[in-house]
């Protein structure tokens, strides 16, 4: 089977600090994979290497079989990336930004206009198409960023904390959209701190801590292996969070 995403022994250091160490995994078409880890675990660094924003010190990132460093143009045309903080041009109107994104990815004008209309309608932002982005709330900007990412119908969607800043209705909408993309044969790879979302949405989770991959398995298999614990308990056990739990308990007991 050909993978849509393949990380091969990725390694990245910042000075003496090893941010990602020998990370290897792959993602199949039609799969939603959650990338979990505590703060500073190496999630964002890994995503940045996969998307070509950072050059790995060792290893390779393949997108649809294309090395992101060797063949960046073709590789980048295959995916979209929605960062956790939408960094949009405040001085552009929403419609202008979306048309700009469509032209970047060479989406035919007619097709782009239809898709922009549909997605803005879905996110209930149609009447905001003529407004400047600087006046948008974080959640609205996030929805525009997601709309922009979906315009060229990417085979792979990378998202960093996709539901942060979204109201429950929009968060649900994003979850539905991701599942629809999975059903259409695309791959979705997203990082999250919300384990409930990972447990409910993901076909598979990859847990990273201190730059090393600690687990890579379907949620159900992980739970079976760990005596039917919740994903939260498994996550805390693997990342050492249980020790912190015990310390907090001791502290609150006056210990």
């Amino acid at each position, binding site marked *: 089977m050909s993978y849509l995403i393949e990380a091969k022994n990725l390694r990245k250091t910042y000075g003496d600090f090893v941010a990602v160490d020998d990370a290897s995994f792959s993602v199949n078409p039609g799969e939603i994979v959650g990338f979990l880890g505590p703060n500073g675990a190496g999630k964002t660094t890994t995503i940045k290497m996969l*998307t*070509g*924003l950072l050059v790995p010190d060792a290893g390779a990132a393949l997108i649809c079989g294309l090395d992101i460093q060797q063949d*960046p*143009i073709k590789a*980048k*045309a295959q995916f*979209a*990336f929605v*960062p956790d903080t939408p*960094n*949009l*041009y405040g*001085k*552009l109107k929403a419609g*202008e930004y979306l048309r*700009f*994104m469509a*032209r*970047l990815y060479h989406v035919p004008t007619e097709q782009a206009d239809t898709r922009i209309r549909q997605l803005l309608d879905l996110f209930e932002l149609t009447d905001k198409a003529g407004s400047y982005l600087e006046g948008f709330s974080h959640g609205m900007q996030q929805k525009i960023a997601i709309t*922009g*990412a979906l315009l060229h119908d990417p085979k792979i969607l990378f998202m960093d904390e996709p539901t942060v800043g979204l109201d429950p209705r929009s968060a649900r909408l994003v979850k539905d959209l991701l599942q629809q993309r999975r059903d259409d044969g695309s791959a979705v790879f997203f990082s999250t701190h919300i384990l409930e979302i990972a447990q409910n949405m993901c076909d598979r989770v990859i847990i990273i801590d201190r730059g090393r991959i600690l687990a890579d398995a379907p949620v159900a298999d992980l739970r079976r292996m760990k005596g039917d614990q919740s994903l939260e308990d498994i996550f805390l056990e693997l990342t050492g969070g249980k020790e912190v739990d015990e310390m907090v308990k001791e502290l609150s007991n006056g210990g």
Partner: protein
Amino acid sequence: MVDSDTLLLLQLYWRLDRRADGGIGRLAWARRIFVGLIIVIFSATMGFVTGVIVKDGVLKRHGRTWCPACC
């Protein structure tokens, strides 16, 4: 020959600069024309444009493809 990506960059730069503080007036026009010419000359002679300041820093292009994640 200026490629379509460069024209898109020019359009974006022009719009953002015109709408930014200090984007109105003869000086602003002169600045935009000067920067625009540099972009066109670079694009026509080298086939790519990098490091063009359009917003609070640098708008990066990776190879000949823009990277929305940087923008």
